[in-house]
């Protein structure tokens, strides 16, 4: 059914979903630290709004809870945490060079198409008005992962991780009006702890590597390690007078 046929709320939901997707793209392209964090907060906000709208539209009060969780975590706590940390580690002005940004964005677009293609097979199942946005949620998740794959800074990786989670959250909201409460709480708790641990690790990393550039963390590489001695291969040669 075309979007025109939908109710206003649904249209709004789809609109905000699209915006959230857009923020993912911005994050993908955003090289500087502070704006990245803010964009992440924005995405969280959009998702919270979507949850609220869904709650209103579908009269699912418990969605308010998940909206609230989203808001507190993704809009307030985590961005704040990251903000403080990046100031503490005075990297608020850091900007990393993204190689082939256009290629990256094109890749993102490809991912969106891919996730649409993937979602096709299951979309028919949901009776909800918001079902078209499942593809969007998948896309947000994959884009978050893409972000983690390409960004050097640990902070950026954390943001990518978090935006993956948002994507999943979003999927839960739009496909099934959220998860059972206990699960949502548990997930939220985990994410919170994770965020705190990330914070702790930033310091450790800074201490031991002097920077948060994860590209430099390859002390445990095996790629350019020589093989152990041959004699260990237990290759005696029969014929040798032993």
């Amino acid at each position, binding site marked *: 059914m075309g979007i025109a046929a939908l109710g206003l709320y649904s249209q709004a939901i789809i609109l905000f979903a699209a915006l959230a997707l857009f923020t993912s793209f911005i994050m993908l392209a955003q090289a500087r630290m502070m704006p990245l964090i803010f964009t992440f907060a924005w995405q969280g906000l959009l998702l919270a709004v979507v949850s609220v709208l869904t709650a209103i539209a579908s009269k699912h009060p418990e969605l308010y809870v998940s909206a609230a969780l989203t808001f507190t975590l993704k809009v307030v706590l985590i961005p704040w945490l990251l903000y403080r940390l990046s100031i503490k580690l005075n990297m608020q002005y850091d900007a990393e060079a993204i190689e082939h940004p256009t290629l990256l964005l094109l890749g993102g677009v490809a991912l969106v198409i891919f996730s649409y293609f993937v979602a096709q097979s299951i979309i028919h199942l949901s009776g909800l008005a918001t079902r078209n946005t499942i593809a969007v949620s998948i896309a947000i998740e*994959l884009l978050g992962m893409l972000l983690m794959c390409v960004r050097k800074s640990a902070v950026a990786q954390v943001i990518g991780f978090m935006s993956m989670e948002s994507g999943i959250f979003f999927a839960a909201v739009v496909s099934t009006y959220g998860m059972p409460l206990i699960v949502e709480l548990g997930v939220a708790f985990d994410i919170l702890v994770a965020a705190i641990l990330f914070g702790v690790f930033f310091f450790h990393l800074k201490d031991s590597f002097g920077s948060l550039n994860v590209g430099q963390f390859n*002390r445990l590489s095996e*790629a350019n390690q020589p093989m152990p001695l041959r004699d260990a291969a*237990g290759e005696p040669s029969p014929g040798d007078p032993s």
Partner: protein
Amino acid sequence: MSATFGTPLLFAYAAVLCTLLSGAVSLLAVRSRPGFLHFGSFFFLFFSGAASIAAGGWTLLAKLTVTDHFALGLPWLDWHLRIDPLSGFFLVLLGTLAVAISLYGPSYTREFARGPAAQPLPPLGVFTALFVLGMQLMLLADDALVFMIFWEMMSLCGYFLVVYQHQHAANRQAAFLYLLLAHVGALVILLSFGVLAAFGGGLTFDQMRAAKLTPLWATLSFACAFLGFGTKAGMVPLHVWLPDAHPVAPSHISAMMSGAMIKMGIYGIVRVSFDLIGDVRWEWGMVVLIIGTASSLLGVLYALMQHDLKRLLAYHSVENIGIILMGLGMSMIFLGSGHKMLGTLGLVAALYHTINHALFKGLLFLGAGAVLYRTHERDLDHMGGLIHRMPVTAFLFLLGSVAISALPPFNGFVSEWLTFQTALQAPALENGLLRTMMPIAAALLALTGALAAACFVKAFGIAFLGKPRTRRVARAREVPVGMLGGMGLLATLCLLLGVFPTTVIEAMGPITQLLVHEALPSATAQGWLWLTPVSPQVASYSAPFVVAAMVVVFGLGYLFLKRGTAPARRVYAWDCGFGQLTQRMQYTSTAFSQPIRRVFGGVWKIEERVDTLASAGLIPRVTNLNYSLHTYDWSWLKCYVPIGRMVLAAANKIGFIQTGNIHTYLKFSFVTLLVFLWIVS
């Protein structure tokens, strides 16, 4: 478990129990109390051996087959045990060697109790016991699981025994190679059982016997079994572990390995192909025959090039396994083409040679051990003249050499003679190819025999005859009586099995009855004096006569020539009137094998180096000449090294996965996810 009283199994269990006790006792053999090993452990080992002989002998004589099972193993699969003539035969073989080394061991292992070669003793005793235990229970096994468990246990304990003196790198490498091949071999055997189990619907041997296999799968199963067991038996080209592992193990263990362990490979081949699979095909026989011939010839040729006594003996094990396989191969060919009786003949020849080889190879390794024990020398080129210092050892070793060189009236000759007789029945075959193949195989067997004789002239002649080449050897003493006893037992058996073949073949009747439902009535028809495998007209041999004639000749010689003549005068050797002889003028083992090296050049990879040191001066004279010669095993260089290289190269390449860069890792999982999504959508 069912009541086993009044059955051979009782003895078998007794044997197992004694073995366990022997292992348990040797746990106490700490440095301060070596007696627990020397006496306790070997004491029980003796009874274990005796009990296995009793069990096996009873089964053979009474033609019994007894089964039993314990509620062990898997919930739906008990431990099935069974003793039948075949396993009984091998139990006798194993028990004989066990008895021999239990006589030999107590003195021999003193070397490890103190002195430079001191080692912690408990491992030696424990693993010797477990090694024997593995073989005993493997022979008793009646389902694939038990079989594999104890098969692997045998290999594993063998490993611990080879690596016993682990401070030498040679031991470690040999042991590693041995265990690696044993493990892979065992897995291949497992596959063979897997096929049988898949068709028979169960892991017990009875179910496997009942399995109806298509020719393809039967052949696959046979191929797996042959490869796996062949690795253990040490057939070319899977033999490379053998000449490394046997020399470095303690000598009584080498005797056990060469005498008993590699025979278990033969047992496996016979058990699987004749018993479990059942209808053998002549194509298999052809393969076995070819591989057997290759093993025997290459084995002896490589043995000729060795100057390490134990290594030489190890290569001879390869040769003899080859001869056994030839017998088996011909038997398969005959059975496969419907000549039951001749097939039986081949089988008998093979089994006969199996036990013969166990006896004389055990004897020879014990002899080598005796030399090692007194001189700490394994290199022939450092020995010499030991016949004067260790006359009894020399005599026993000589008997072993005669036996292994297949000379009458000893046992080695009888089995080879039977193999020849089998080959000569080739005209009975319809297939022309086989008809030609067999006699040629026989001719190569003759070549092998002659070369073996040459090799043992070298081994015995260089080691025991002539003049001592080093001071340690010159100071050697005769070994303690216990060791002589162990060797003497085996030597006596070598002679007995050579002189009374008909009795032995009669005793083997039940085995062939069990496997191919056929015995050799004709062989023993003419009484104990005459051995006539097919019929008196076709061929006959009477060992007792030969021995008698020898005795007569000696008697007459004594009566008419020696008696009353003046005692012989001792003088310098004449040596065509050359001057005083030194021990450096003697032929060394390397020199001895030079003509053969030249004739059969190319069989070995030979690196020969002559370094000459010329003195300064107007006319430079050679003051120092150093000759060194290395022979390498082609099958090692051509089969194993490449494989090893390949694996290492692959391992080297694969490193790229672990770049250490987290982005790569993330990309891996990202791509995996996308690919899977793609697959399912």
